[in-house]
């Protein structure tokens, strides 16, 4: 209907615009395609370089080598642990906090809430990792990634609290009232009644916090400086760049980078909606 009223000039403009968007899309996709296809190339072919995207022969040796010799099995497990840990802790802490901030009333509630939001904007860079590292050593949490999980969840939680609070506020209070009359306590209303209704916001929190944990770089870099076994993929792969045998390890870095980005891209393709919703809800309306 609408297209039928377009003039020829409008049609030409629309075609040009789509062309512009397509070129931009190719530029955006290029690094991802380049690294994924490159991870199947032999090291010699990578070092010669050039514009050829497709490998001459598809070889899986890079992955085998990365997995077996270069500790990538370990790094991958660590990344999964980090991502899931941050995800579980974030869902657990922020869904309850969002509920309390939306439904409970107590003195200084708004002040406490704004403290959460304020610390989202206070940014003093990596220097805060130093006291946290010293603290982790003191409580003997520096021998596992759990300290990194706590810090990642702690520094990222404000957005999710904000989202959960907003979501609970949009649920009619009559539901709470009815449950209260039926004898539910404050916690039971959350656990039995609201939590199932909060599913969309829990999914958003789960996905965004998993991504945050999976992609964390500087913090695990600092915390695993002297402990190779604890490194997640992000740190393990970039470390190869600085290690002595630089060019010899290109194929390993390609395979490692692919192992790091492909899972998160697949998750993104499956749950695109949640990723975008979380970004918008958490940022613009904040």
């Amino acid at each position, binding site marked *: 209907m609408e297209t039928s009223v377009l003039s020829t000039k409008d049609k030409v403009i629309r075609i040009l615009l789509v062309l512009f968007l397509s070129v931009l899309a190719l530029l955006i996709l290029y690094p991802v395609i380049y690294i994924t296809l490159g991870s199947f190339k032999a090291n010699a072919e990578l070092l010669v*370089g050039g514009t050829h995207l497709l490998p001459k022969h598809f070889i899986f040796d890079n992955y085998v080598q990365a997995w077996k010799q270069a500790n990538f099995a370990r790094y991958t497990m660590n990344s999964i642990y980090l991502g899931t840990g941050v995800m579980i802790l974030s869902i657990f802490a922020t869904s309850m906090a969002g509920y*309390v901030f939306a439904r409970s009333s107590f003195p200084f509630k708004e002040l406490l809430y704004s403290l959460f939001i304020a610390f989202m904007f206070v940014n003093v*860079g*990596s220097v805060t990792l130093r006291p946290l590292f010293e603290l982790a050593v003191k409580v003997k949490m520096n021998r596992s990634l759990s300290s990194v999980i706590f810090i990642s969840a702690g520094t990222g*939680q404000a957005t999710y609290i904000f989202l959960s609070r907003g979501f609970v506020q949009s649920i009619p209070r009559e539901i709470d009232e009815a449950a209260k009359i039926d004898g539910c306590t404050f916690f039971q209303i959350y656990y039995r009644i609201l939590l199932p209704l909060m599913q969309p916001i829990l999914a958003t929190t789960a996905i965004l916090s998993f991504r945050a944990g999976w992609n964390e770089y*500087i913090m695990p870099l600092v915390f695993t400086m002297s402990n190779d076994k604890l490194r997640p993929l992000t740190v393990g792969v970039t470390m190869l760049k600085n290690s002595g045998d630089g060019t010899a390890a290109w194929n390993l870095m390609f395979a490692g*980078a692919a192992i790091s980005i492909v899972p998160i891209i697949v998750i993104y393709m499956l749950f695109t909606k949640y990723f975008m919703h979380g970004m918008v809800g958490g940022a613009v309306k904040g």
Partner: protein
Amino acid sequence: MKQKHHDFGPSSVLMLLPSVFLLAVTSVYPFFWLFRYVCYDYNGFAAYFTGSYNFTHMFSDTVFWQSVLHTFEYAGMKLAIIIPLSLIVAVLLTQKLPGTDAFRTIFFLPTVISSAIYSLIFGFIFAVYNGPLNAALQAIGLVKNPIDWLGNAKIVMRSIIIVAVWGGLGNYMIFFISGLTGIPSEIYESCKIDGANGIQTFFKITLPMLSPVLKVILMLAITTAFKDYESILVLTNGGPGNRSTVMFSYIYNLIFAPSTPPQIGYATVLSIVAALIIGIVTAIYLFFARKLDDVV
């Protein structure tokens, strides 16, 4: 009528405890810790009182002040490209063009990838003698000799901006799209009837209607651009020389560089100054954004 539905009880306290604990340990405690070593030379093992030395040293530390300039340069260039570009893309993606959903998914994709990893990938793409970017430019005859994207002091910042725009475009696009979908479609229809063309509609209707959202997005973009440094650490680690050192990458290396002894006391002073600089820039921005409100 407002009514208190649930009073503050022990269950509320318990349910808030995990979040409050995390906030206290991971944000509040390190923030106040910052002020502890301001007057000390602290290398991680021993702290020596040095009085005002850290402050006087800061004023004569040319590398730090260069890094402040580089931060402004980086933030300015990044914003000048990423904001208009993401706005254009967002406007185009709300015009019911074919393939809109696919474009949206593709443009947002970089935001799910770790900046450390995509910076590593761009490191390969920028490689001097065997990188695909130089190879492509030479193949179509745009350049004769390969360009040293990350090693040439004159262009390193531009290369870093390319990576930053690649990584952040999708974010701002989504923000703008959400702002644009809030503009009622009747306005556009009446505009069409009045015979306005696309460009007129954009400047007379879209931009003014978008301005409240635009202000929030700009503030987010400014604060983000000033604190970016992860990508720079991976791409150049501040080099060549200190040409791509920004405030936070300089501070990071003062504390965590493996080759030099940590200067933690000095780094806390610089961190506080860096946070103040960002705070002042944000305040100035907010002041002008409000002024703009009075005019329009």
